[in-house]
Every structure is written in C-alpha cells, then in structure tokens.
C-alpha cells in the first residue's frame, strides 16, 4: 500500500507523455504537401537591408527577396538574366548596357526601372549609411571618388539610366567578373519610396525591412520575422518570372549550433541542414548517403606568417616551415570532410589552376632551416600559432605543431583567442603565425590574389612585392583571358616562392538535403537559388 503514490506518479507520467501524441506530422511532411521549405540558416540575421549587412545568413534571405541585374545558374554558376533580360559589353570591356525586363516589378506592383538602380547604387555609396561592402562598387567609374567625397555630384559616377529600361554602367577597367558581382547583395536594387518613407537616402537602421513595410523585387517577399526564431518568405506574385517559382514559402530557421540543427533535421523539422557537425559526417556517409551533399568550396584554409618579425622575416625559414607540412595527413586524418590539400592560395577551378606548388619535402625543409642559421632547429625561437577558439582549428594546429617538431625539431606553442580578439590581433599584426581563411567573393582568381597586394586591407602579413602588385594591376587591365591568367599564375608563383602565407587545404562543405527537395543544386560558391526548387511528398 505504501507504494500507491509512486504508482500514481508513474501512471500520470505515462498519460501525460502519451497525450503528447507520437503520430505528429513533422514540419517537413507538412511542408512537402504545402510546398514550404524549411532551411537551417546559421546566425540570426542582423538585418536584410542589402546595403548594410555583411553575413552569409543574411545573404541567403536576400537571395530570396531581392534580385540583381543578373542571376546565376546554381548548377554551373553561369550568368543568367535577372532584372536585366539581356546586356551588351563594349569592345574595351568597360561599358555595359543592360536592357531591363519590361515586366520587372517590385513586390508592391510598382514598375522596376533603370532609375531604381541608379538611386540604389547611390545609396550604397553614401558614406553615412555605413555600408561595409561599399568598396564592391568601386570598380564603377568615379564611385570611389563619390564615396570619399572628392566629387559630390552623383551624375559623374559611371551609372546612368538612358531610358526607363536601359541602364548603362561604365567601369574603371575591363573587369571580367563584373557580371558576377551584380548578383552580390551590395548591388541589389532597393525600393526608393519605401526607404524614403522611413528616412533619408542614407538613414541607417530604419524599420523599412520589417515584414509589414518591406518591398523587394525577388522571387519571394518577406512574410514574417520573429528574431531568433524564424524568418519566413512567401512567393511574390509580382515577380517577372513568377511561373518558375514552385515553392509557396521558405522558412529560414536561425540555428547557431550545428548539433541542434542536426537534431532538427533528424526530427523532420528541416529540409536543409546547412552545416553537418564534423563528427557526424562519417555517420551520414554510412547511414544516410542519400541526403549527404559533400562539395568543394571556392575557399582556402591557410596560415599567415608575420613577415616583419624575425625569424619569419627570413624567406628560408618560411619555406622550411611550409615544406615540412604534409597536407594529406591533415585532410585524410584530421578534417576528414572531403577537403583537398591546397598548395597555392587560389583553389583550382575550370578556368584557372595555379601551376606553382608548395611541395612537401621535409629534407629540403631541414636544409633550408640550417641555411637560415638553425641547424636541426638549434637556437630557433619559440613561435606561437594563433587561432580563433574552435576545436577544428586546434586539432589542425596540434598536427602542424607535431609536423614541425618532427621535421625541423622546433617547438611552437598554441594560443587561442575569442573571434573578435583574434581579428584585432591579426589586424594589428600582433601575432607570429596565424590561422586564416578566405572565401571567394566571386568566382575568379582575383578575389584571392588581390588579398596579398602591398598594404591591402586583408594582407595582414607585412609582405610586399612590387612585381606582385604590378602583376595584379596588369591582370586588372588585361582583356584577353589567357593573358590575364598568365599574370595571375606568375603572381601565384611569387607567393609560393616567398611564402607569406601557408595554404593548407581547400574547403569543402557538408550539407544534408532531404530527398523530397528537388532541383536543389550545390556549387563551389555555396550559392543558393530557390527559383526552380520544389518538394515532393516522398519521405526522406
């Protein structure tokens, strides 16, 4: 009889839990029927104003609710029409004429015209707006001068509306990747009347991006936004190509932790798992290969050397450090997520593959170190590898520490810092060796090689080479692709010879996509396109 309260408690628990019903329909199953796509989307978006944000999660939403002059085919990244239905390029490659789609409209039904682009780009270049990506417009004639205040009349900047549907853009130099940049959020058009309703052209942080106020021009438009919970977008019936949109809604879930995201995917709350936790990749490979998508990224993981600090100011020391890294060991046994060893800064691509290679040659490394005055590592000062706090970076640093000990008999220490502290240390050159990565902004070698020009904002190694700067400049003015690649290749060899940076691997991305999602294509730029995506009712 004593046990009656316990039995009652157990009974209550059973009733309670079974009331929570086990045959709930998952959001994915409901979404499949109603064409609602659920996507894991990383951090909470800071905003969706395309001229203010800087992050990838924001861009994923902007790609749904805005559209640039051109768009990309997610299968092969080929340029396809966006707001512009066609365009012409002058022979010298500096003058572009865009013919806007006559049916192009804003989500409130207003016509989208050439003047909208002129006004939007003027806004993007207004200093008071605080656009951190303003420089991506600097390849337009006089854009930089307007930004810095050297000219104040925007009509002097190389962008003009010739008539309602005709837009002309004049560049500083022939820029083969200009069309690609048009798809970047900093060049998206914004709706003037909406923005002016809430403030001046350069008012930062007005509520125009709230769902109740928002007007965009993408295939979808903003429906709902609950911070840290969900951003949802719905089909935009005013979109010029509304027929090719099959989804009714996309729900972007801001999930910071990849382990949480993975559980949501398994429980049928997400169609798209943006980033599989490293530890789970093997499990998915074996048990759910049908949902796993592994693909290379146009991005490089590398180490920076502070070339102003001895002994790293000696090129032989840097070479010795570089030649003693066995990258295969790292990609096969540490990262294990489909990464490939990188022997140069620019990742290989179908249009350019660097010919120079930083070899793995521990014997040569030893000889170089001896030549630099440290035979068998004797007298070599203790250097520190700096990285931002994260398990993956620590593992790699540990392996590299081991490799240097084995090949060169030198000791290095490891130091981790919180992200913002790490950025500040790197920027102020307060480091010796530092972990780094670069994700291409556009699909062209220039996005990588431009990093290392003298005093470039992202150089951060103190390295400088006049010939290198000249080559990057020559490439910028070259209109022949073969000639341009030759300049890039020579520049790349300079990097490989002088080793201001130590490339380690080319990134790969591991995503999981439910099998009910059709026409979802992955590519090296991790560029998302929702236009033709649709859902079938089959289970995952």
């Amino acid at each position: 009889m004593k046990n009656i309260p316990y039995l009652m408690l157990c009974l209550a628990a059973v009733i309670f839990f079974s009331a929570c019903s086990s045959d709930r329909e998952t959001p994915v199953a409901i979404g499949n029927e109603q064409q609602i796509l659920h996507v894991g989307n990383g951090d909470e978006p800071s905003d969706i104003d395309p001229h203010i944000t800087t992050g990838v999660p924001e861009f994923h939403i902007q790609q749904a609710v805005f559209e640039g002059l051109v768009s990309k085919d997610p299968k092969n990244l080929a340029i396809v029409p966006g707001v512009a239905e066609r365009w012409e390029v002058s022979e010298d490659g500096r003058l572009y004429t865009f013919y806007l789609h006559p049916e192009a409209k804003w989500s409130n039904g207003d016509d989208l015209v050439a003047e909208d682009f002129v006004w939007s780009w003027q806004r993007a270049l207004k200093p008071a707006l605080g656009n951190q990506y303003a420089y991506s417009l600097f390849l337009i004639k006089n854009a930089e001068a307007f930004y810095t205040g050297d000219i104040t009349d925007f009509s002097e900047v190389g962008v003009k509306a010739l008539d309602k549907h005709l837009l002309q853009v004049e560049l500083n130099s022939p820029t083969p990747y200009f069309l690609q940049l048009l798809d970047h959020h900093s060049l998206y058009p914004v709706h003037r009347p909406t923005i002016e309703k809430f403030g001046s052209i350069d008012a930062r942080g007005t509520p125009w991006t709230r769902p109740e106020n928002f007007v965009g021009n993408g295939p979808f438009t903003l429906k709902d936004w609950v911070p840290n919970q969900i951003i949802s977008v719905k089909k935009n019936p005013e979109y010029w190509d509304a027929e090719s949109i099959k989804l009714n809604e996309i729900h972007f879930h801001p999930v910071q932790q990849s382990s949480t995201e993975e559980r949501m995917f398994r429980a049928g709350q997400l169609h798209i798992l943006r980033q599989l936790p490293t530890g789970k990749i093997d499990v998915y490979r074996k048990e759910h290969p049908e949902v796993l998508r592994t693909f290379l990224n146009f991005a490089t993981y590398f180490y920076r050397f502070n070339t102003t600090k001895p002994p790293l100011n000696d090129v032989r020391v840097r070479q010795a450090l570089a030649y003693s890294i066995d990258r295969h060991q790292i990609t096969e046994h540490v990262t294990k997520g489909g990464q490939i060893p990188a022997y140069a800064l620019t990742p290989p691509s179908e249009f350019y593959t660097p010919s120079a290679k930083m070899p793995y040659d521990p014997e040569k490394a030893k000889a170089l170190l001896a030549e630099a005055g440290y035979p068998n590592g004797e007298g070599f000062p203790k250097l520190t590898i700096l990285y931002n706090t994260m398990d993956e970076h620590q593992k790699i640093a540990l392996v590299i520490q081991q490799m240097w000990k084995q090949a060169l008999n030198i000791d290095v220490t490891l130091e981790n810092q919180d992200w913002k502290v790490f950025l500040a240390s790197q920027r102020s050159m307060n480091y010796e060796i530092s972990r780094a990565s670069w994700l291409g902004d556009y699909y062209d070698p220039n996005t990588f090689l431009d990093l290392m020009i003298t005093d470039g904002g992202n150089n951060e190694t103190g390295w400088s080479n006049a010939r290198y700067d000249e080559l990057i400049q020559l490439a910028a003015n070259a209109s022949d692709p073969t000639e341009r690649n030759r300049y890039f290749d020579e520049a790349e060899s300079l990097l490989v010879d002088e080793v201001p940076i130590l490339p380690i691997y080319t990134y790969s991305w591991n995503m999981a996509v439910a099998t009910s999602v059709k026409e979802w294509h992955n590519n090296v730029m991790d560029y998302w396109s929702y236009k033709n995506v649709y859902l079938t009712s089959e289970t995952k």
Partner: protein
Amino acid sequence: MFGFILKRVAQAIPVILIVITATFFMVRAAPGGPFDEERAVPPEVTKQLNARYNLDAPVWQQYSDYLLNLLRGDFGPSFKFPSRSVDEMIAAGFPITFELSMYAIIFALLIGVVAGVIASLRANTLQDYVPMSAAMVGICLPSFVLGPLLLLSFGIWLDWLPVSGWGYTPGDKILPSITLGSSYAAYIARITRGSMLEVLSQDYIRTARAKGLSTFRIVTVHALRGGITPVISFLGPAMAGLLAGSFVVETIFQIPGLGRFYVQAAFNRDYTMILGCTIFFAVLIIIFNLLSDIVLVWLNPRLRQDSVKRG
C-alpha cells in the same frame, strides 16, 4: 516593512551604478570592436560607423550620454541589429525567458519539495537514498548534457516531443523546462530534506503526532511551513540564476529568449546590447532577492520583529 523595502531599494542604487560603470568601461576595453569583420573594411567606413554610433566621442562623453539616455529608459540602438533597439529586443526576448524560468521553477519546486519531504520522512531508507542520489546526479549533470540526452530520448527515439522551437505546440515547452529546472529540483530536494529533518525532530511535531494527527496533516500543516523557509530564501537567487542562465537551454532548444541575445551580444561586441542586458538582469536579481526576503519575513514571525526594529 515599508521602511525595510525602502532601505533595500536605496542600497540597490549604488550597486546598479557600479554595474553600469564597470560594464560600460569593460566592454570598451575588450579587444576587437563591434564592426570588426574578417574582411577588412576601408578606414572611411569604420569612421562613418563610429560617428553614427557616437563611438568617436571621448569615452567620458559617451558615458555621460549613455547615462542620460538611460534615465529616459532608452538603452540605445543595437550595433549588430541596426534596425532594432535594445529596448525592443529585451521586450521581445524577456517574456519568453521569464515563461521558461517560471515553468522550470515550478517543476523544480514540485519535484524537489515532494522528493525532499518523502526522503526526510523515510530518512536512511531506500526511499531516502534513491531520490537523494538522483538529486546528486541532477546537480552534477549540466544542462548541456541533460538537454541533448532528453532530446535524443524523447524527441528522436521515442518521437513524443518536438526537438526545438517554442510556442509552436504545447509539447515543445516540456523538455526545456525540465532541463532548466532539474538541477534546481535537485538542490531544492536536498535543502527540503535537510530542513524537514530538523523540523520533524522539534517538540511541536512530537506534540502533533501525540495528538494523533495523520502524517499527511503533520507534514502539510505543521512541518512544511518551517521546513520550506530555506527553500524560499534559495528561490530568490535561483530565479535570478535561472533567468540569467537560460542561455544554454535556449541554444539547445532553439528558444528565442533573452539569454541567447545576451550571449550573442558579448561575442558580437554589441556594446549597447551587452549593457542593456546586464543592467536589466542586475535589476532583476536585486528584485528577486528582495522579494524572497519579503516572503521570508512574512513567513517567519521572528524575522518580522527584527525587520521592524531594524527598519
């Protein structure tokens, strides 16, 4: 009583001022600014942004401007979320964190007090050892372990409850509340057991027993009133700890509460958001401590006399 409250409120003001001042200067002293990104931006851009958010003014002026705005109840705009104000984000996130914490504390009280009472009645038997060992495990098991464990069992294997979200279905509030409340339940169980054992050995309990009252009546009417006092004084700090410490649970269960905003703000160097949340939580902690003191005084006549004398 009124004098007592007034005195405590007066004591709180300098505490809050110290919190504001220390936080204000500490966030600015931390390396890395709110607008530092992996990609270096041209210096002109940084200059514009600093001007926009008053970061180019001398620090003492920023400080006095901040205090003046604070007097008007304005925590300022968030640096990370340009179109949102700190006030707005606290107003959006706090009710959720509060709701979660209330469920957690109710869960903790229900389980903790019942387990503690049972254990104290059957001291040094199996019915004491089992719940008390469970409590020990509960105290030791951090929420970032318990949360995923519960999720895997009830969310994925049994598929009874959703693994994330808040407010979509009533079921999605169960696991986070249990995760957040369990270690407090464990503490409460141990505290209850200890103080109940003490109370049960008192003379007036023996008298009650001698009068032939049932155990149930002795516990609920006579013993619990005294036995629960330490639990009440524990509740104030516990509630504050729950509110400020819900971050882990909010992250695991994907709950849009204030805890997540707060911790993200620190990583983002979102100065105004860090300050706003810190001040807000400081005030809350002071309020909850005060409330638990008031309840304590009200429950315990001896303290009431004291507070009248002191107050």
